[in-house]
């Protein structure tokens, strides 16, 4: 690794953020819950890291260092999947900078997206995205919000066939276009589906999650906390006594426990700017998961608040 002034500055900034991380957590961590990607049988930690809003910090060196500290805590706790998109502003560059600073390009499961209406621009956008991450190839590329999905899926399938990509996928969020998602799942050989799912947004349970299980499609859950709105609202309420039975010591863990206890869910990707939240999220996947009755209790309780 070449030592440059920039790298020295970044390492110093990361060092400044390190006191936020208890040493025991940096070097020793319980193994997180693992899930299997149906298409390959590959095991992957059930908690990933989203970058929507949280990693879009532009050229702000302090905030970049904080993002790198979040990534450091994430990897130290056993996390692997980081998800981003060309739509997320500077997030891709911030992820790439963090991976370079931490020298963890080998540890990351890179989940990216193609997001353009133009079929012709897709390959160029993917090249640019790969350059920002600094990786040789992506583990997963998804068609973001189904934008230009037919042409982009063809591109991704061709990349996979040529060995330049490991998995293909599509994304949607907040319950949009589930009919089209279902059609694509039935007619195209995708490996991953990304959608929104949490105790108060359960539409995916009706058709898409059972279909994903049936067709061997891995499922990534975005916006588990409704972009923080759900956990902010619940922060005013006391955690119920029975949360411990679900292995949860916080509302975030209770929600993640609910999500991960659905058998079709492979990875949830909460986004955060805080190291303690990363640890808390990954710990949610290290304990017991709620059974069917407890899942319903969680959803009913949170829905009523």
């Amino acid at each position, binding site marked *: 690794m070449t030592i440059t002034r920039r790298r020295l500055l970044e390492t110093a900034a990361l060092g400044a953020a390190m006191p936020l991380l208890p040493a025991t957590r940096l070097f020793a961590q319980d193994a997180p819950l693992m899930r299997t990607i149906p298409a390959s049988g590959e095991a992957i930690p059930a908690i990933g890291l989203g970058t929507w809003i949280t990693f*879009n*910090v*532009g*050229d702000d060196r302090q*905030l970049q260092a904080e993002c790198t500290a979040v990534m450091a805590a994430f990897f130290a706790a056993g996390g692997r999947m980081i998800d981003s998109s060309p739509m997320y*502003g500077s997030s891709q560059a911030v992820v790439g900078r963090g991976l370079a600073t931490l020298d963890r390009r080998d540890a990351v499961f890179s989940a990216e997206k193609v997001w353009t209406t133009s079929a012709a621009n897709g390959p160029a956008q993917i090249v640019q995205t790969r350059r920002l991450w600094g990786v040789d190839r992506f583990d997963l590329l998804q068609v973001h919000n189904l934008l230009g999905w037919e042409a982009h899926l063809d591109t991704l399938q061709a990349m996979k066939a040529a060995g330049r990509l490991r998995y293909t996928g599509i994304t949607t969020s*907040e*319950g949009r276009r589930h009919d089209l998602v279902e059609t694509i799942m039935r007619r195209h050989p995708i490996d991953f589906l990304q959608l929104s799912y949490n105790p108060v947004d359960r539409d995916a349970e009706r058709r898409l999650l059972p279909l994903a299980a049936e067709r061997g499609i891995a499922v990534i859950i975005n916006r588990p906390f409704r*972009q923080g709105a759900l956990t902010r609202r619940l922060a005013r309420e006391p955690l119920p006594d029975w949360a411990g039975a679900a292995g949860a010591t916080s509302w975030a863990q209770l929600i993640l426990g609910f999500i991960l206890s659905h058998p079709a869910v492979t990875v949830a990707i909460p986004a955060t700017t805080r190291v303690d939240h990363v640890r808390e999220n990954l710990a949610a996947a290290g304990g017991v998961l709620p059974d069917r009755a407890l899942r319903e209790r969680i959803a009913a309780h949170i829905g009523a608040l």
Partner: protein
Amino acid sequence: MSEWWTYRLDDFLLFSPRTYWRLFEAQNAALWPLPLATTAAGLAALLLILFRAPGASLGMGLVFGVVWAFVGYSFLLERYATINWAVAYLGPAFFIQALLMGGAALRAGALAFRRLDGVGVAGLTLALVALLVFPVLPLAAGRPFACAEVFGIAPDPTVIATIGVLLIVRGGWLAVLLPIPLLWCVFSGLTLLAMDETQAWLLLGAPALTFGLGVVRFGPRWVRRPEPRV
């Protein structure tokens, strides 16, 4: 965009409020003490207009043309566009406005300076709010003073001050000078609204006020006030 009716305003917000406000902190720190000079230049331009001094048109065009171009480059393209890709497309509008302000200043008769009427007083108030109140808004909002938005350094006070002076002056060029500032107010106001910032209403209120005052000045005779004698 499919199912557009299912999108909320905050679905379009790409960054956190903390990241947004730190842009101003970085801008002020990088340019200090220029914020003092731009504020002084803005106040000087305002005085030239109020006293209808010789060269008022040229002075106003020079100050406002330069600050629009400067804010467009130094803040919008260099900073804001790094967290909001849409701003890369809006930045050029600031350069167009800079040219328009300069052009209006140089073209004889494009702008006229008359004694203040009611609309002019409202414009003066708006300009003073932009020049003197905007920088202290962080104190009211609980943010550090270091992230103050200053005329000629940050877009919102620059745009609001421009609308203010355009309400003071008269002339045929107003129809081409007002659209870009008003559209920016809507864009920035909606962004601040998505961030739950109260000052969003300042930005969203400016176009509404301008429209209302335009009706008073140019609308049906029954709502127009008598033209003050020059």
